């Protein structure tokens, strides 16, 4: 892990910004992804670093950054909107209590925090310097935090996300205390995500007060909302009273939706926009070769896998799953799907991550002979069977995984075919368990509980249907329960380490690749700090004339 800090060091937010040159080190920061199935499916790089060049002149202030987004903005009420792109805008306008630096919680609106001895009380000390934008124009206090969380949880809107929280209280003018129902290790992950932003009550009421009415968000962030012409562009302007000096550097940000990938790239190369998100692997090389543009890349933002329904024959037979794991040639898939902007993966966490567990030689690598051996030993359960792998054409990683896997299975003597669905249908099938196996990918999540619990544990959504009859099921449930209630990091690392060993052994899913998030920039744009959260942080960026 790069960066000078140990994971528990709580650096101030301001220092993070000041080190613009730190952009070069942004390669491996962890971050949290979005919970929706509709993640940004941008592939990623192999070895070359991100946009690291900092011009001799250093950061300049002023200028407008024009950005092209990969989908339409859909509603801006922070506590209601559901698209990554809208969250991104909100993240620059409103602030969360904490953010993440190098995978660990760092301060944003909360400057310090303490966890009670029982592990269930979290007390946050808030900064006294945060101010709300005009027309509210006052300091943020603990009451605002309480208001925001209560608003978010109206009518149980946040459902199971907030189920862990028993109460939120202002225990001082600048102090807030959360009491959880029971110890819940992933709690910090929620606090860094967009819906958990602080907003002022008077602004919300002025715009109607109901969930979904707050379409011109007012917050404490470095940018304030200026105007939005639906279908056209959204403008953010710098907030002059922001509590950190020289933040933001830009005067304004103009955001235009350009859903078509080819148009985005063309617009960037033509100079109509300064930055675009959602660049595909095949376009990435073009951008790098064009002298007027460059590429910014964040490794491992998407985790691609073969998602399996372990209660659906023949996938309920662990031998079948193990054989498929050996038949798979991950590097071919990475090459074809994301043009090398990604890496073969046996788990969602990269080597640099604290959550990475070293599987060593037990890792199921590409070995068609071993696949056949496993099947023979198990009495040829696939005799006369054709495996079906569901996929869609909307997301390149999923589409390519399925197509190549089918060919690779064929090479290992296993009969297989793809079933191409429309994305909405595939999502429904995913949720409804109407599948045997499907090529799938999810946005990366910082906390392993967020990846694994939902897939396996019977009290979660159990998307893998890993029932009690499956090998070591009870042990895996136990590990997951302990993982979320244990608050000591080192303990958790061991717990999830063992969990990954069992996953490798029994293959409730088969991990395929970590794909990277790519953004394109004009060559005069600097200061991009890509991280694993899908929110672009505009306040660190500047343009050179």
């Amino acid at each position: 892990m790069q960066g000078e800090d140990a994971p528990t060091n709580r650096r101030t937010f301001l220092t993070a910004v000041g080190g613009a040159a730190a952009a070069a080190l942004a390669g491996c920061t962890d971050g949290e992804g979005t919970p929706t199935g509709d993640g940004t499916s941008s592939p990623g790089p192999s070895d070359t670093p991100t946009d690291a060049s900092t011009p001799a002149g250093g950061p300049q202030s002023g200028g407008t950054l024009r950005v092209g987004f990969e989908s339409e903005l859909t509603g801006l009420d922070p506590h209601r909107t559901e698209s990554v792109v809208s969250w991104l805008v909100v993240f620059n306008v409103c602030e969360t209590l904490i953010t993440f630096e190098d995978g660990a919680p760092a301060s944003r609106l909360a400057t310090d925090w303490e966890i009670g001895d029982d592990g269930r009380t979290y007390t946050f000390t808030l900064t006294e310097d945060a101010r709300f934008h005009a027309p509210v124009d006052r300091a943020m206090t603990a009451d605002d935090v309480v208001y925001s969380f209560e608003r978010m949880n109206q009518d149980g809107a946040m459902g199971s996300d907030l189920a862990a929280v028993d109460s939120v209280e202002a225990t001082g003018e600048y102090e807030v205390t959360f009491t959880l129902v029971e110890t819940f290790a992933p709690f910090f992950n929620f606090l860094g995500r967009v819906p958990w932003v602080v907003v002022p009550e008077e602004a919300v009421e002025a715009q109607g007060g109901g969930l979904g009415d707050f379409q011109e968000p007012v917050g404490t962030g470095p940018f304030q909302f200026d105007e939005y012409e639906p279908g056209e562009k959204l403008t953010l302007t710098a907030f002059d009273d922001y509590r950190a000096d020289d933040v933001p550097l830009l005067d304004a940000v103009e955001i235009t939706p350009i859903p078509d990938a080819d148009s985005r790239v063309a617009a960037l190369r033509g100079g109509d926009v300064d930055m675009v998100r959602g660049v595909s692997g095949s376009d990435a090389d073009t951008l790098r070769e064009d002298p007027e543009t460059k590429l910014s890349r964040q490794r491992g933002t998407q985790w691609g896998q073969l998602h399996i329904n372990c209660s659906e024959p023949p996938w309920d037979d662990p031998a079948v799953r193990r054989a498929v794991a050996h038949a798979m040639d991950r590097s071919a898939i990475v090459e074809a799907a994301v043009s090398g902007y990604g890496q073969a993966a046996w788990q969602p966490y990269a080597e640099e991550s604290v959550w990475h567990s070293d599987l060593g030689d037990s890792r199921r690598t590409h070995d068609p002979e071993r696949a056949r051996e496993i099947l023979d030993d198990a009495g040829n359960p696939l005799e006369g069977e054709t495996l079906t792998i569901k996929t869609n054409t909307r997301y390149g990683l999923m589409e390519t995984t399925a197509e190549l896997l089918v060919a690779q299975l064929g090479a290992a003597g296993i009969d297989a075919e793809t079933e191409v669905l429309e994305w909405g249908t595939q999502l429904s099938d995913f949720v409804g368990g109407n599948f045997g196996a499907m090529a799938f990918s999810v946005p990366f999540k910082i906390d392993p509980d967020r990846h694994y619990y939902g897939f396996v544990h019977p009290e979660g959504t159990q998307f893998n249907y890993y029932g009690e009859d499956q090998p070591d099921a009870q042990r895996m449930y136990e590990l997951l329960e302990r993982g979320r209630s244990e608050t000591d990091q080192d303990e958790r690392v061991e717990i999830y380490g063992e969990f990954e060993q069992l996953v490798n052994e029994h293959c409730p899913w088969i991990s395929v690749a970590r794909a990277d998030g790519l953004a394109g920039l004009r060559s005069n744009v600097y200061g991009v700090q890509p991280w694993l959260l899908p929110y672009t942080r505009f306040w660190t960026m500047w343009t050179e004339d």
Partner: protein
Amino acid sequence: MTDATDADGATAEPARPQSPLARRARAFGRRFRRNRLAVGGLLVTAGFVLLAVLAPVLAPYDPAVVDVPARLQGPSLAHPFGTDRYGRDLFSRVLYGARIALQVAVATPLVAGAVGVPIGLVAGYVGGRVDDVLMRLMDSIFAFPAILLGLTLVAVFGQSLTNIVVALGIVYIPQFARVTRGSAVSVVEEEHVRVARSLGASHARIVLVHVLPFCLSAILVQATVTAALAIVLESSLSFLGVGVPSPTPSWGSILRVGKGYVDSGEWWYSVFPGMAIVVAVLGFNLLGDGLRDVLDPRTDPNR
């Protein structure tokens, strides 16, 4: 219909009693052979059919075999049309794509005709209100841009080759209906039909024996036209991503993927499959134009 006079002049053939239909068939054969468009069209179409049918034999590679290290290579001796994003040989895939196109070209007119011809016959024979209503209905469907109708139908039915053929068939029903009706209307007034009616023949018999045969030439021309249109429409739908689903190498879906590589220089991905479409469609269009000339007695055969 008119008597096809023998433009060759007198030959030394003894007069043999032949049914009007047989005589017409022979005259048709002669005129066909003399029409350059028709012959050209037949040759190209026959070539297309042959390539499609013989694809498994002619293709140098299995179109499904992937070879990732060989991906996105330009035309070469080993791969005359280059390779695709997974390293599959594009020449083989284009050959196999002809099979899809052939299925579409044959099945669509069959589906459209199976419904359209009866409708046209009924409208032309019965006439009056029935004719009015039926043709209005046909006009309503016909007025729809084919691609819009096709898109909506496929979006609803779901994507599979069968569904697409059915959807395309529905799109082209009105043409068959109109064309059949047009011929039927002119036949209905003729001598032999009235004679049959007065003899008490059933309506069904009259329609099938006396009316339908005289509509056949128009229907045939329409079938070739529809075949051409169907190939274009199916490849358009596949290009848009709403056509024949993924692993099947439809020309349109290959072009769909190929478009993504236009900017990065892999031009072969877009050029060759498209040329295949043009050739196949041209064949049917030439054939259709030629047939129209041959079957329409008013036009000069040497246009």
